[in-house]
């Protein structure tokens, strides 16, 4: 049998390609005898590997040569355009690689083939990606599962009529299910009253901040241990099917921000808890490739003493920063993004641009949610009635203060348990930590929320 070897040589083999860049190289065919090739096929596409069932797409397919090869070496230059999505990604259970592949179809013989991986940096809109090749097995299974559910429903309806024992078993199961729902869904919700968990951005880029608000309006006075927001990225890969189906999960990144500590919300009064969580610059993007997914989610947890916790999860889509390479190994899993700017620098920046509301807004939005150490001079306590109270603690204190250099006005929101610190302190210097929550354009003051405990700073 004739020997036929294929090799791919790239012009720049270790180059990282952006979407739309040209991959140039040469296919080298070496044969020791005369060989008939019915098709020399060249493809460029992506494929997942790791623990999930393989997803793949080959958006570019070309026929390079058909005919007879004489013994010797034959070269075919190629020039292909890369697709920018999904990007090359190497995680724990989920990996995506792009390949240039070549296969020679030889009648009545094994088809020789070879491949070479290339690195692709994300560009373009992930919503406009060519979809992975449909997993026909999944469609069939989906249909079968739907048919099973309908069949089961009909079967049980008939069984309930003829056999009360079946009714008892499934009635028991339904009771357990509804008991779980009652304890862990209905009870916390009932305690919190009206809850509104809102995320400002459904889609955000790596390096950006995820902001939003959680507001509650309880029916009765509500004590809270703490309210926290957990932003996490998880690889979720499914392998096998049917009885061999297994789901593999790996937490890639997790950050928890405490947005409120021990406090009491007065009955019927709305309490708002804004949050601000920073994504790392090289955050891995959301990937949804059939059985291979990288999912970003934000979970809000309200810890209620001696009561089941209220929890709600929202999914957000993270897109890569343009031309930024994805490297989960360097994404600093489970690290908190520490503020890179001091309070003095923040105050100076705001002071410099204080006459331009747009600039002020830009600076303030960059530091919202950051907790900083600062020193200020207490001026006076304010009444809640003459100030915007969305950041105020229930039964807490609002204090007017100013920073020293520059003399930037500050509005401090202190919890009830720290009211003493600000009582009859006019003209005194106060030092501590607080979280920037906004800017009051009317009084031109930076709004800062003081945590419930002086040493409180938990990521």
């Amino acid at each position, binding site marked *: 049998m004739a020997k036929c070897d294929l090799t791919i*040589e*790239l*012009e*720049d*083999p*270790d180059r*990282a390609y952006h979407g739309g860049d040209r991959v140039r*190289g*040469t296919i080298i065919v070496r044969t020791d005898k005369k060989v008939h090739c019915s098709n020399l096929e060249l493809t460029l596409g992506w494929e997942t*590997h*790791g*623990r*999930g*069932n*393989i997803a*793949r797409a080959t958006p570019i397919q070309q026929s390079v040569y058909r005919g007879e090869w004489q013994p010797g070496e034959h*070269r075919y230059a190629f020039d292909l355009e890369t697709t920018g999505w999904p990007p090359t990604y*190497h995680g*724990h259970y989920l*990996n995506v*690689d792009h390949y240039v592949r070549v296969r020679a179809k030889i009648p009545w013989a094994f088809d020789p083939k070879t491949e*070479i*991986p290339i*690195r692709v940096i994300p560009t373009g809109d992930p919503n406009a990606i060519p979809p992975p090749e449909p997993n026909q*097995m999944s469609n*069939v*299974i989906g*249909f*079968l*599962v739907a*048919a*099973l559910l309908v*069949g089961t429903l009909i079967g049980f309806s008939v069984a309930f009529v003829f056999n009360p024992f079946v009714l008892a078993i499934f009635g028991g199961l339904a009771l357990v299910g509804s008991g779980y729902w009652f304890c862990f869904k209905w009870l916390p919700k009932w305690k919190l009253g009206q809850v509104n968990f809102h995320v400002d951005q459904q889609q955000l880029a790596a390096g950006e901040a995820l902001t939003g608000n959680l507001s509650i309006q309880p029916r009765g006075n509500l004590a809270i241990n703490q309210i926290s927001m957990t932003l996490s990225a998880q690889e979720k890969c499914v*392998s096998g*099917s*049917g*009885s*061999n189906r297994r789901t593999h999960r790996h937490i890639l990144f997790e950050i928890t921000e405490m947005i409120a500590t021990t406090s009491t919300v007065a009955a019927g009064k709305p309490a708002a808890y804004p949050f601000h969580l920073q994504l790392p610059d090289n955050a891995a993007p959301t990937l949804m490739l059939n059985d291979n997914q990288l999912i970003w989610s934000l979970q809000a947890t309200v810890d209620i003493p001696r009561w089941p916790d209220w929890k709600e999860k929202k999914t957000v889509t993270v897109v890569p920063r343009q031309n930024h390479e994805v490297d989960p*190994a360097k994404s600093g899993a489970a690290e908190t993004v520490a503020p890179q700017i001091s309070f003095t620098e923040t105050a100076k920046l705001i002071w410099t641009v204080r006459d331009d509301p747009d600039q002020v807004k830009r600076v303030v939005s960059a530091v919202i949610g950051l907790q900083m150490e600062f020193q200020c001079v207490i001026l006076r306590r304010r009444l809640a009635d003459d100030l915007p109270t969305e950041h105020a603690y229930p039964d807490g204190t609002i204090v007017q203060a100013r920073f020293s250099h520059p003399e930037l006005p500050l509005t401090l929101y202190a919890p009830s348990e720290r009211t003493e610190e600000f009582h009859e302190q006019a003209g005194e210097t106060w030092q501590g930590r607080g979280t920037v929550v906004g800017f009051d354009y009317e009084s031109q003051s930076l709004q800062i929320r003081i945590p419930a405990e002086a040493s409180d700073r938990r990521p």
Partner: protein
Amino acid sequence: MTTPHASPTYAWLPFGHWHLHRNPFGELTREQRTVAAVVETASLQAVLAEPQGAIQFIGHCGHGKTTHMLALLACYPQATYVYLPPDGPCPPIPTGTPLFIDEAQRLPWRRRREVLRRGGPLVLGTHRDLTSSLKRANYRVHTVNVSAKLSAHRLCEILNRRIALASLGTGTTPHVDLPMAQRLIDRFGHNVRAIEDFLYERIQQYSGVTCGEMRLDD
């Protein structure tokens, strides 16, 4: 004159230093599984040469029934393969010569009777011994217990073939030797899937590592 091309270093690949383009013990496509299968097919093909020849691969989950079937399937371009899911109605059983039915123990007796009445060579992957049903339909049955066939030598070949499939072809890849294969059998029994799961996690620890020696077991 053509410009000489530089050889790729693959330093950007997580296992580039180990001359692997991916973790060898992740999921494979059906085509890759066929290539990686270590199955002696010649004697099995002789069974299927008879019009009423039937082969059943028996074994527990993860022991290699489907891999055996896929390796044999590659020898028959006219064959048909069908997988019976655990839930839902049984899918239509196609015709094929031979006909491959995976998870054949899930075949309802009425459908089984129809398939056996049709005749023609059969290859079954099953958790339960179906010899009596097959014999009643005048089949000559050859049973392969895939769990019993796993020796250290064979495991060594299976694992090294998986590693070879992930090789970049740029240098020496990690290797499983006989003592290591025996240690893996002692620890995980004949469950190849459990062994592959263990090795996946083991190799994953070397992602991005560019020095030292890769140790595949303790």
